[in-house]
């Protein structure tokens, strides 16, 4: 049997590319349904307290208004809400309009349903709320003493705080503000109850089954009576990993009015309704011998969460195993504030944690007078330090060399503020990233039709990376077919089950399912062939090509085979999942980011001039898509490093920059040429296709590489993201 490890990287274009850029892709707010109504949410303007009066009469009387929904009239119409007194369901999803309590500024407190969007907007502006306010807390720094330990136990390997006994050590605090989820497509949903017992939802989601389970659960329905459809998702980055109250509001509103309802958030509403990468304060203590052998690392983090959920991410996890270091202790704490709930954002946890660790490594390398790469290689881990297992594959060392060569690392003068170019200070920085390489259970169906076309189906969503192309590429290689012969169908609960898209799992999980299904289909062809021709050929006799196969010199087309067998189509469905290899190895993807920055010597304005990423993500299935995904991660990372921050006015507990003019996502002018280099060596153990996934490592390490480059350019160490020019304060020498 040939192995997909020999797969040649293919420059296939996106299956959805033309549709997306021509308006042909239908997003969840774009479905035209007869009698569609429009929902607009009203939000709380205080951060904490009780709604004493909610004046809705004017809105109810406004033209075109069908219904105003709030805690005043929701009653017990949602069985799942009525079941218990918790304010959340499914662990962390706030019940919408559940009671008169306000838990954060911007919380949805009413839904206006009208016959047009404009009328709903107008009516929503007529709703007035009075509150009994309570003292709120939104300031992390001032509430550290109220923190809790969500994981119960802190991590300790050997001696605690051993860094203090090292010949050279560093203690530093790092901090970053909220990064708000702002994909191009806003949070949106169209809910259509076809009958009292049958619901169809066009949803912005990263996982159709998660949504299905949640909506069915609201009314105690059988999941099979809820269909969730999401063939196109306009970016998500984690915001749609679970449903949010706005989606409940739409489903409940449609149920009560018995009318199809569309609800799309405004950009401003995105800031408090779909989560964010939480503000986190970190402490690193790190120490080594004079010749650069790490002795101890202490990493403590305090992350923000809401009052109603203990949102947890792996902020300190990477520190436990990134380097060979005898003594490591980490502590992760949550500070519960009167804010909306965070959610995972690209590179969740690790992007935050690696910012601290990889800056600290750079700082310590500088103290040791060592090259930052040499320092990392000196402490390179070949056995996982936490569980003492080998990695399934690890080519991080090759990443360092590939990237260093490409950006000209060794030509830099390592002395800070020593390099200039075009009147600007020049800095080079680097940092590494790591993320779990998982593999979930996934099912794929492949169907060969009488015209020789192959259809691949999976319920997986494609939130942007080009999952359809990945599926196609695997099938193309399996059958040696051209892209044009293959149709991909995804993003629908009626298709074979797949995990939620997230955590760099998709290619490993779904790609493997497609691979296994394709193999099974070929085996089935052998069977059909033998039956049809009364022969006893074996699988290895078959050489597949784009039209069909060749058996010992004789060619058959797929079309002919199906005709001979009297079949309209040949179909195989296969589930694929991980096995005992997970007990024998640790699976990780690795990245190294190199950046070159210019810093203006008078004003401190930063311009990223070049980024080089080198990564070990196992076998690259579709090089063009993988490259694009890396570029996307770098763009997000530049935002995290330099421009993005959700800024509260803590007096009111509200955001002051909840729009695209004031919350700065990077624009084209901020983005330099980005080089992506793949080690591209298959992981021999993770799955049949050797791919490890790269969505998360694309951003992890980017922010510290920029912070390190700014230090190199200016001699100024900024440990607080985003690194705006007032923090660099280049004028302060």
């Amino acid at each position, binding site marked *: 049997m040939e192995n997909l490890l020999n797969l040649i990287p293919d420059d296939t274009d996106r299956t959805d590319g033309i549709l997306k850029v021509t308006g042909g892709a239908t997003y969840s707010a774009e479905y035209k349904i007869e009698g569609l109504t429009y929902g607009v949410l009203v939000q709380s303007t205080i951060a904490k307290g009780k709604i004493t009066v909610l004046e809705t009469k004017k809105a109810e009387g406004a033209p075109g208004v069908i219904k105003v929904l709030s805690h005043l009239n929701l009653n017990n119409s949602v069985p799942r809400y009525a079941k218990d007194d918790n304010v959340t369901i499914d662990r962390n999803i706030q019940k919408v309009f559940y009671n008169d309590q306000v838990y954060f500024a911007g919380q949805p407190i009413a839904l206006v349903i009208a016959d047009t969007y404009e009328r709903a907007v107008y009516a929503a502006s007529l709703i007035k709320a009075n509150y009994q306010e309570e003292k709120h807390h939104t300031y992390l720094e001032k509430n550290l003493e109220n923190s809790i330990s969500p994981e119960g136990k802190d991590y300790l390997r050997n001696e605690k705080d051993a860094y203090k006994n090292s010949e050279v050590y560093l203690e530093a605090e790092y901090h970053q503000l909220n990064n708000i989820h702002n994909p191009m497509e806003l949070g949106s949903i169209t809910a259509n109850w076809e009958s009292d017992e049958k619901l169809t939802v066009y949803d912005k989601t990263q996982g159709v089954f998660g949504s299905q389970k949640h909506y069915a659960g609201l009314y105690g329905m059988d999941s099979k009576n809820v269909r969730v459809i999401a063939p196109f998702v306009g970016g998500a980055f984690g915001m749609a990993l679970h449903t949010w109250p706005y989606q409940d509001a739409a489903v409940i509103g449609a149920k009560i009015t018995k009318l199809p309802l569309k609800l799309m958030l405004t950009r401003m509403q995105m800031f408090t309704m779909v989560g964010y990468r939480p503000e986190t304060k970190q402490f690193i203590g790190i120490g080594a011998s004079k010749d650069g052998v790490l002795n101890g690392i202490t990493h403590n983090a305090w992350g923000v969460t809401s009052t109603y959920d203990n949102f947890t991410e792996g902020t300190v996890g990477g520190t436990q195993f990134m380097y060979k270091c005898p003594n490591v202790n980490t502590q992760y704490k949550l500070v519960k504030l009167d804010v909306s709930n965070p959610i995972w954002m690209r590179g969740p946890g690790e992007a935050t944690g690696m910012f601290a660790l990889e800056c600290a490594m750079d700082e310590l390398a500088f103290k040791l007078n060592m090259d930052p790469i040499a320092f990392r290689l000196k402490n390179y881990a070949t056995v996982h330090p936490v569980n003492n297992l080998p990695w399934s594959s690890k080519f991080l060392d090759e990443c360092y060399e590939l990237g260093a060569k490409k950006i000209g690392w060794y030509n830099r003068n390592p002395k800070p503020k020593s390099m200039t170019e075009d009147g600007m200070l020049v800095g080079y920085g680097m940092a590494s990233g790591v993320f779990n390489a998982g593999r979930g259970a996934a099912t794929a169906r492949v169907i060969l039709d009488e015209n020789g076309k192959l259809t691949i189906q999976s319920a997986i969503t494609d939130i942007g990376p080009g999952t359809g192309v990945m599926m196609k590429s695997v099938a193309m290689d399996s059958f040696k077919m051209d892209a044009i012969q293959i149709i991909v169908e995804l993003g629908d609960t009626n298709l074979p089950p797949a995990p939620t898209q997230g955590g760099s799992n998709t290619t490993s999980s779904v790609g493997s399912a497609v691979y296994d299904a394709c193999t099974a289909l070929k085996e089935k062809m052998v069977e059909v062939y033998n039956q049809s021709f009364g022969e006893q050929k074996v699988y290895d006799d078959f050489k597949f090509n784009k039209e069909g196969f060749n058996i010992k010199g004789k060619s058959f087309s797929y079309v002919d085979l199906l005709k001979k067998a009297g079949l309209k189509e040949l179909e195989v469905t296969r589930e694929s999942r991980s096995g005992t290899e997970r007990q024998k190895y640790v699976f990780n993807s690795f990245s190294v980011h190199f950046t070159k920055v210019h810093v203006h010597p008078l004003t401190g*304005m930063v311009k990223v001039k070049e980024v080089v990423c080198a990564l070990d993500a196992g076998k690259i299935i579709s090089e063009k898509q993988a490259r694009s995904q890396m570029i996307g991660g770098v763009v997000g990372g530049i935002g995290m490093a330099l421009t993005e921050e959700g800024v509260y*006015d803590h007096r009111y507990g509200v955001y*002051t920059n909840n729009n695209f003019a004031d919350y700065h996502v990077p624009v084209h002018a901020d983005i330099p040429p980005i080089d992506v280099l793949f080690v591209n060596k298959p992981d021999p153990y993770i799955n049949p296709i050797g791919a490890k996934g790269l969505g998360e490592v694309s951003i992890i390490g980017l922010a510290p590489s920029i912070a390190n480059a700014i230090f190199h350019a200016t001699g100024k160490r900024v440990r607080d993201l985003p690194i705006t*020019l*007032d923090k660099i304060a280049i*004028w302060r020498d």
Partner: protein
Amino acid sequence: MINFDYIRMQSVKSTVKALAKFTDAKMIAGGSNLIDLMKRNVTAPTKLIDINLLPLKYIEQSKEGLRIGALALNSQAADHEIVKNKFPLLAMAINAGASPQLRNMASFGGNMMQRTRCTYFYDTSMPCNKREPNSGCGALNGINRMHAIFGANDNCIAVNPSDMNVALIALDAQVVLLNAKKERKMAFADFHKLAEDTPNLDNHLQSNEMIVEILIPENNFSKNSYYVKVRDRNSYAFALVSVAAGLELEGKTIKNARLAMGGVAHKPWRLYDAENYLQGKEINTETFKEAAKIAMKGAKGYGHNDFKLDLAPASILEALMKAAHLS
């Protein structure tokens, strides 16, 4: 957004007549700021007077200087040969502002009229004396990183957000205003005002008046002009500090200087004392540093924007060095 009447005007005459009649009407040209304000319920005119068909899109040379119709587009001016050759400072400032899409919509008159970007002004749940007189200033003890360091008081510390305005004030522009009865001309420098006791008013345009023309007199700054914009990202961000500098040189001697700043005051901020200091001096780093120091007299920070006290003189130095081709 509440309902409003929409009237499209065909002539300047009918427009000023309508303005005399409807006191709460607002004119709309590109709408790139007004529509935002209406969507967020910051302003709610009952009548919207569309002036886009008025014949005020011209840019032409006259004996007195360059005449720019109030409806000339920002991008039209920035790409105009005369502007690029004779008034490059204006082209540089315009191109530093907003995004190409916005510059294609925004008119000269509209840009002059654009309101502050203070976030407290835009959020109707917040106090703001500019939006709602006597409600207080949210920014004063709040998030005021973008705010004024010159000429502010406790009523309002908002800044004028325009880049174009900074170049126009530096270039001694004049403004022609018209109402149903008469035309009046004023120095561009007198058009915008400080907050003082009436932060709700950004400028001296009367409710029955419209801007019809901007006039830029001839000058000799074209060879030594520079616009510096310091901001949080490399495009589509308002200035933390911006500086327009124009020098007329005789050899190394400064015959005439123009210097103005944006992002630092309720109006575009002309630096007359620094200009006077520069006159007759030789171009060099020390002279420019001293000018920057003089320019900063009376500056005051409000907390988050304290860094502007350092950033502003650094930016002035950068603008002068670049204008003098010393860096």
